[in-house]
């Protein structure tokens, strides 16, 4: 039964997936390479260093089937953080023209203030229609070879990202040009018990562009689903992008995501990884700083309760001088939930004058809650400033009593203090609508209705 190479696709019951036809020739080549890597990597066990605290038993014990197209209409309202946003919707990994700003013909395009332009279209269409834009980046955002990464530092291997490359059929191509005034919302909806989805999102923030996007993942709670999304983001020279990622899936969902960003010189990328939902969630976020004078935020807010298991692995590569990066993770763990955080920062030999700050703080609300956190700084340059700190605490007695003595009920007082803990990150999100809806969801998760 145990061979050296796990037949991993069949381990998930997804053999049928590997056989689907796959677009243009260059893509088929990409997919063939990805299949090779995925086969070699298999489905990791907890013996694997990067999966030490995250057993995948719950995932591999089930049989999954390749995702079918979802329904054309939804009973419940799809998430929207801001009434005036431009919203695009992917249902079961497929770009949905009708739900993406009803009535707008595909591709969704919009003019922002200052002559900006927004293109949002099915990735499947973009593979052929926009080959010149898509091909250089798809699957290439993260340096994959030791040669590309540099002598001393190893590239990561991401078996689920490889699997996504093998099987994805559609997703979103988003191109941002100039200044985009409205908030851009990307909504991923999953529905269909026992189905697996592999949406692929490619975001191209062109030179000098400015935009704010929020990418929200939900599932409809009608049975376990498994999503293995890959989002690739290219922030070109001088571009400024705020990217909020919200994982708010129903509590029986499985979510294993890969999120890679490439930053060109003088670009700014402010990313926020908000994790509220799913039974098992793992996000691998990588940011490659490929030029001087970059500013980067990679912050996270995690709130896990019940039996949730939420794991975030971040990796930041400072490959050029004068990069500023800030990483704050605020993690709230209640009941029997487990939260894992691993934050790698590599400062490459040439990356002099790097200024990198990493903080991760956990708040344990119950004696059976678990947090495993590991900062990992590897520095190969000599003139740099790098700091990291980690704390684990509980709600303090005195502020709770203070609030209660003024009449605030216990549960609400606790929720307010938990929010205050998370607020240090949430309040950095510049879009007020997004911030408020994330605050509201956090209170809902904590069982407090603040109306």
């Amino acid at each position, binding site marked *: 039964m145990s061979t050296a190479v796990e037949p991993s696709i069949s381990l998930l019951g997804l053999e049928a997936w590997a056989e689907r036809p796959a677009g243009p020739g260059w893509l088929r080549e990409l997919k063939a390479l990805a299949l090779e890597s995925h086969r070699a990597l298999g489905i990791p066990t907890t013996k694997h260093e990067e999966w030490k605290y995250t057993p995948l038993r719950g995932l591999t014990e089930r049989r999954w089937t390749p995702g079918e197209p979802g329904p054309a209409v939804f009973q419940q309202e799809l998430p929207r953080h801001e009434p005036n946003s431009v919203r695009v919707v992917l249902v079961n990994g497929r770009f949905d023209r009708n739900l993406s700003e009803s009535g707008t013909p595909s591709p969704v395009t919009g003019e922002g203030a200052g002559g900006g332009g927004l293109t949002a279209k099915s990735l499947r269409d973009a593979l052929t229609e926009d080959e010149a834009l898509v091909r250089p980046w798809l699957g290439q955002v993260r340096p994959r070879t030791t040669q590309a990464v540099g002598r001393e530092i190893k590239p990561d291997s991401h078996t689920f990202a490889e699997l996504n490359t093998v099987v994805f059929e559609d997703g979103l191509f988003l191109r941002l040009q100039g200044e985009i005034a409205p908030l851009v919302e990307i909504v991923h909806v999953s529905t269909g018990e026992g189905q697996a989805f592999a949406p692929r999102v490619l975001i191209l923030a062109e030179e000098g562009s400015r935009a704010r996007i929020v990418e929200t993942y939900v599932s409809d709670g009608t049975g376990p689903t498994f999503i293995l999304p890959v989002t690739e983001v290219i922030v070109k020279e001088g571009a400024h992008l705020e990217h909020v990622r919200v994982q708010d899936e129903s509590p029986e969902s499985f979510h294993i995501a890969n999120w890679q960003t490439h930053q060109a010189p003088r670009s700014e990328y402010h990313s926020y990884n908000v994790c509220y939902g799913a039974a098992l969630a793992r996000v691998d976020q990588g940011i490659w700083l490929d030029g001087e004078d970059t500013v980067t935020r990679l912050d996270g807010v995690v709130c896990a309760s019940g039996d949730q298991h939420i794991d975030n692995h971040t990796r930041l590569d400072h490959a050029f001088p004068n990069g500023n990066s800030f990483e704050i993770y605020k993690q709230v763990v209640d009941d029997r939930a487990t939260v894992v955080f691993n934050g790698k920062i590599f400062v490459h030999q040439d990356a002099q004058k790097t200024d990198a700050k990493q903080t991760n703080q956990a708040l344990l609300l119950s004696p059976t809650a678990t947090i495993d956190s590991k900062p990992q700084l590897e520095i190969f340059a000599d003139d740099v400033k790098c700091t990291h700190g980690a704390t684990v605490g509980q709600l303090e007695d005195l502020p709770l009593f203070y609030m*209660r003595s003024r009449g605030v009920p216990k549960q609400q007082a606790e929720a307010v203090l938990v929010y*205050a803990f998370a607020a240090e990150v949430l309040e950095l999100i510049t879009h007020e609508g997004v911030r408020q809806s994330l605050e509201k969801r956090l209170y809902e998760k904590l069982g407090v209705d603040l109306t």
Partner: protein
Amino acid sequence: MLQIHDLHAQVADDRREILKGLSLTVQAGEVHAVMGPNGSGKSTLANVVAGRETYEVTRGDILLDGESLLESEPDERAHRGVFMAFQYPVEIPGVSNTYFLRAALNARLKAEGKEEMDAMSFLKHIRAKVQLLGLSNDMLSRSVNEGFSGGEKKRNEIFQMAVLEPRLCVLDETDSGLDIDALQTVANGVNALRSPDRAFIVVTHYQRLLNFIVPDFVHVLMDGRIVKSGGKELALELEDKGYGWIEAEVGATA
């Protein structure tokens, strides 16, 4: 209004007894000053009345309007009209002062079955009180007590009291650390709230405060008990002579 009867309280952790048979009766409309040496149990008394779980009542009772407070949670006591101005007000980073206070007020309105206040009517409700206590807009929007000076924290306590309009107000050394002007401001805040259906227990070390907030009774708390009570002239006597003579007196009668 308030009857404390033979109250014994200990620190829950180490069972050290701090209040050792304290009795005190306060009628509506009255102001009672409580004075006493450091460590005699004044703050413990205030905290036990407010319901702090650090302390365990082992004997005796606290009645508010004839009903025991002891089984009530701190927030329920607040809804019943109890308020303590903390000797050391607590900083709560990330929670704005106005948000906090509105949540507190709305929780009580809700408990009373009344309609809650929206942000606008709340701002209207507090406007006059903000002025009375000389609070700045900045202090209102900042996190609760965070980075406030000692005096600002004390003014904020009285401001909260003015907004919540409790019936039993326990002020624990609200005068400590105040400059003369702030003392006057705080006293004005308290005096504005004095009314026939409201009572005050004012814990202080200084007779000076009692020139501004004139008490009906003055009590001396020593080693967990009220050992002497009198009128406002008792405070003057204490200022003059210290606590030694009372200790001697208590020792002689014990």
